[in-house]
């Protein structure tokens, strides 16, 4: 493989990693603060993707994507708030199995509702005009939108970092992770804080859905597809670690990209992702950037 081909497949892997990171970051953030693995996270991603396609269709190519971005974030944020208030608050103190079953039930309900509201067929849309087109580098063509996805993921990673380490909200979130009861005793409304965290997680899922919609067919099975990979990324990187999600998504994206390209590993490209996940669980159960159980 020459350097030009190496770059080609590396960029392919990064574009794959980009949307997976955005989704996995939300999953990880929610777990870190609320200690809930949200099985409905992929459903929120799917809702946002469908909303994006529908709104973009209504508003037209010029402004549709941006209108869709706003609409998807608002709607998914509201759905996230409702889920946290109506379902999760009732199961925080329950066993983990109850929490998992509760959020899993939500995935089934949302999947059914999505089929009723948006229909069973796949929907497609084009990238906004400003992000359309392709460019040629060293004899190979690249989609401009794949670079947009990568840039968006970097911006979102920086945004989440700044939110956690440069804002009062982030300070409270980190305090809640350490000791939510102490935080509550200091006068912070922890219940409301948890709702805010969940809404942020939902909005990250929504961002993933919005960003992926112009590059993939939007269908009613995309919730499970993304959740499985986002979960693998979170386990590899460390559940609760945003940097872990970033590194994990790059590993998954590149392993898949180069794995498919190589004739010896082609058959096992996707399996490698889960082999790595299993290896991390064996060697470092808290993930590459996670924190071991106290």
């Amino acid at each position, binding site marked *: 493989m020459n350097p030009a081909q190496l770059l080609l497949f590396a960029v392919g892997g990064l574009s794959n990693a980009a949307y997976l990171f955005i989704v996995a970051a939300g999953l990880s953030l929610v777990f870190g603060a609320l*200690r809930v693995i949200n099985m409905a996270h992929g459903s929120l991603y799917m809702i946002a993707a469908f909303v994006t396609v529908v709104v973009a269709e209504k508003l037209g190519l010029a402004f549709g994507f941006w209108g869709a971005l706003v609409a998807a974030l608002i709607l998914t944020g509201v759905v996230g708030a409702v889920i946290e208030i109506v379902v999760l608050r009732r199961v925080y103190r329950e066993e983990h199995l109850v929490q998992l079953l509760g959020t899993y039930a939500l995935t089934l309900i949302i999947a059914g509702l999505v089929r009723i509201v948006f229909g069973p067929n796949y929907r497609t849309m084009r990238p906004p005009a400003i992000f359309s087109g392709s460019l040629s580098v060293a004899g*190979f063509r690249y989609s401009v939108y794949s670079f947009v996805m990568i840039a968006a993921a970097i911006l979102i990673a920086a945004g989440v970092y700044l939110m956690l380490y440069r804002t009062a909200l982030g300070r409270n979130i980190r305090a809640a992770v350490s000791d939510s009861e102490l935080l509550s005793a200091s006068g912070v409304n922890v219940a409301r804080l948890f709702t805010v965290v969940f809404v942020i997680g939902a909005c990250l899922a929504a961002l993933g859905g919005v960003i992926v919609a112009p590059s993939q067919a939007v269908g009613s099975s995309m919730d499970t597809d993304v959740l499985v990979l986002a979960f693998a990324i979170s386990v590899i990187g460390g559940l609760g670690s945003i940097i872990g999600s970033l590194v994990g998504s790059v590993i998954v994206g590149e392993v898949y990209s180069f794995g498919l390209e190589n004739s010896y590993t082609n058959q096992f490209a996707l399996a490698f992702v889960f082999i790595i996940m299993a290896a991390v669980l064996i060697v470092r159960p808290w993930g590459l950037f996670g924190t071991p*159980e106290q």
Partner: protein
Amino acid sequence: MISLVRKPTGWLVLATAALLVAAACGGTSSTTGTTTFKGVKKIGISTAISGQSALYGHAISQAVNLAADDLNAKGGVNGYKIQADIQDDGTDVNKAVQNTQQLILQDNVAAMIGPVTSAQCTGTSPISRQNKVLFIAATCNSYQLTTEPDLINPYYVSIVPNTFMEGTSAGALVAKLSSVKKIFIVSPRYIFGISETNAFVAGLKKANPSGNYEFNDQSKWYVPFPTNPNWSSTINDIQAFKPDLVYSNIFAADQINFVKQALQVDPNFFKTYPMTTLSSVDELNTLGSSYPAGMHLYMRAPFFAIGNSRLDDFVKRYRARYNEYPSDWAVMDYDAVQVWAKAAAAAGTFDSDKVLKQIVGKSFQSLRGYTFTIRPGDQQANVGETVGTTGDSAGKYPFPVLTGVTNLKGDDILMPTTLMNELRDGKCEKGGDPKTTDFALCPSWKA
């Protein structure tokens, strides 16, 4: 380091198990109606209402319901109201097996209409054999289902062109393109993809023995199925290989994502790398005007290319009821129900053995505009295939249609019975291993 974890590890096994359940599960649906009949007889169908092949299962379920209603409007079959018992398999083999067991053992269906993919058919056909329930395949089509001793099911009937018919036809078509010497193959890694791709290569080489074709590395012909929705690796591989032609039999969500992403990499991608691929109205309709012009498609039953008065009426009624155009799968699965109903009526019973006798060797009128016959032996119908090049529909449809259409006749593409028998007798494989099957090894293929 950003780390928000307090106790991260205790949940992982539980969550993994829940994820697996999530991946395996799907919903259910069935039809009900008024009863002015002796009773109700159900036809069972486990199909992909969700998952990778949901696009096809949706159309199939609608067509089967329409077929049942059409039968009931004419008094049902043998005085019984016909009801479609439709279960979602989520494009998952295990779920398809579970559904089929439920349909046969609990719901007592009179017959089964086959699932979407050959993987599901491979898993469910043995259940029909074991329980002696008729199984009519109208979408899944791997020829191995009728030639491999372990898979042969006397109750299995195919009314869809099988992978041999499709693959060799596609190969023969590509062989006519004199400028094509370098071919990139992309195919789903499971029985259908492997079967059809092998038939394509064999058909190509037979049609043009002096072709001296160069293919991409065989170990990379196949992609995981169902796959990751990001196709950048394959698209990049094509760019690196620079073929004269891309041959594919990826379908449904995979084809949509592949085409969409390839066009984002280069709007002229399919002009630079022309593609011959299996397709259907569903892919055309989903991508609409984005579906590239100039693609060489082979299709099983595109309504716009095989118009006849009966099909036109079906399209009209289908659209009136569902506000959609019927896909190839809808046309063929409607045919499947009609085949079963006609045979059951001729038999005067729903007993599978007696109904089967009214199917094998008999002829049936198809929505596809011709009469097909289920030949004894592999119980494969001599159904045709439609080939052509995508072009503008001139506003008639919201998607491109085929131009330069050729409707290949079933008799011309059917697997020769000699070849079928050689495959069944293991004469086309090395060391008795069915995985090594190669048409080039069959004595009659060489002749």
